[in-house]
């Protein structure tokens, strides 16, 4: 549905994007993850035809955004990072203006506008001026503007920015409900958001795509064998050298908690090696408190990739 290949863009001396390529299948939700200034907004602006790229091609639903912009933009809904709102318009007028710009037929106009307003629970503020609304409402009006013409492709730049936790949950639910009929790309610097809503994650750093795949794939790619965490009540430094001599145990080390030892198991380790580790600890009279499998959070993956 979306094809981005070899995108490069520089602002004067600053190279914002370097050979960014990715594909998004129809019906997927893809998270675009990156720190501030990583190139998320630039990529999205180029994808929507708001700015041009130096090199590279973007195809939306099979149409090149620079060669056939009208066709491509018809199937595109975009929520930019700063909501493009006319403060002096009423909510319903603004949303119908956006619908008209996107060539919604006059006959369907009212129905589509009502549907978008309802979907974002804006019905009670439909007659208020956009400029008088709070930030959360404004963000939702901007979202309504993006979905009113029922686009095949939705590009959302930090959609939950500035919303309260209830609204964030609501928007996430909405995005989930839009999946399937729509292809969605959403950017964020909040990891949990991407982790919860997206089928696939693309991590961008300093203008290059550093990693892409599903959440599990990303975490898996970063794992070199499973890590375990053993917490004892005393004497952790005492058993640490002993663990090092145990065959199959990989780089045991003291964690942030001085009573906890973190270690990995090599692929050749015998199946009941964990029992040996516990026996060792018990024999030394350390007192076992906890033995857990450590899975990496997206935060760690992200941190590792971008540092």
């Amino acid at each position, binding site marked *: 549905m979306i094809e981005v290949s070899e995108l490069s863009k520089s602002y004067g001396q600053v190279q914002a994007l370097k050979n960014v390529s990715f594909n998004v299948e129809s019906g997927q939700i893809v998270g675009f993850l990156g720190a501030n200034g990583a190139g998320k907004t630039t990529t999205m602006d180029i994808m929507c035809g708001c700015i041009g790229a130096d090199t590279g091609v973007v195809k939306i639903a099979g149409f090149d955004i620079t060669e056939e912009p009208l066709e491509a933009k*018809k199937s595109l809904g975009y929520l930019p990072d700063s909501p493009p709102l*006319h403060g002096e*318009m009423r909510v319903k007028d603004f949303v119908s203006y956006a619908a008209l710009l996107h060539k919604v037929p006059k006959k369907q106009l009212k129905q589509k506008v009502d549907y978008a307003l309802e979907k974002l629970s804006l019905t009670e503020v439909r007659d208020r001026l956009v400029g008088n609304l709070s930030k959360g409402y404004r963000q939702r009006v901007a979202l309504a503007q993006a979905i009113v013409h029922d686009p095949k492709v939705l590009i959302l730049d930090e959609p939950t920015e500035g919303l309260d936790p209830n609204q964030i949950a609501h928007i996430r639910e909405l995005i989930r409900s839009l999946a399937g009929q729509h292809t969605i790309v959403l950017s964020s610097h909040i990891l949990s958001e991407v982790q919860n809503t997206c089928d696939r994650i693309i991590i961008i750093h300093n203008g290059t795509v550093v990693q892409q795949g599903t959440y599990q794939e990303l975490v898996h790619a970063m794992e070199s064998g499973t890590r375990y965490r053993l917490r004892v009540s005393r004497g952790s430094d005492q058993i640490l050298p002993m663990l090092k001599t145990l065959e199959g145990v990989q780089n045991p080390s003291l964690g942030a908690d001085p009573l906890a030892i973190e270690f990995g198991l090599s692929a050749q380790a015998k199946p009941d090696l964990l029992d040996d580790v516990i026996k060792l600890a018990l024999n030394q009279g350390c007192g076992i408190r906890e033995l857990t499998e450590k899975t990496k959070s997206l935060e760690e993956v992200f941190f590792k990739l971008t540092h």
Partner: protein
Amino acid sequence: MSAVFTIAFRDLKGYFASPKGAAIFFFFLLLMGFFFNSFISTFLEMTQRAPMFGGEVPTLETLVRALFYNLSFILILVIPAVTMSSFSEERRNQTLRLLLKSPVTASQIVFGKFFSSIFILGLVLLCSAVYPGYMLAFGNPDLSVILTSYLGIFLLMSAQVAFGLWVSSMTTNQFMAFLFTMFGLFLLLILNWIAPNLGGGSWLESFFKYIASTDHLEAFLKGLLTVADVTYFLCFIALFLFFTNIVIDSARWR
């Protein structure tokens, strides 16, 4: 075409939703009123005095021409006020993205903005018709001269709007757009007088004189409708709308 009207209609509503539209009408009519008042009293004074000193009695045509000359100067203040926001405010509010990401062409955006400005300024001109109307009610000026003058002023105004849109499309700062438009329009009007200094009798002088809008307007104010002058204004409009189109469209490939 419908996209052009969608954009133009929204802009028009924008003018009247804010005090901006009302302020433009207020100051324009106030200025026109002041000048009309002083013109009339000067006119009456001269008609009374002229026979005493053996001079020529001024005709109503002189009064009409003075009125429209004056109008063309007031437009230098009004037009930048209307066009300054057209693109720069949208750029600043990020609402230009709304247009750029929509399935509309750059020329549709430019024409939309052009028509909305033309429409509001057309309304302003319509309001100014009270003064010639006043003369028609209490005197007998030549109606056809008034009509050609209006046509000339309208063409001049459209050309100035096209110029103002071009300036506005290049900046995010409304005040800069206002200043540069006003300066540019003023230069265009006085180019006629400074042409001899710039070109010193050569072809350059006649070139600058041709570019200046003053001579072209003068024919209309005399009641002359010439193809050359109409063409001048139409070319001017087309040229600057084209420039604006390039500025807006360049966002896609720059």
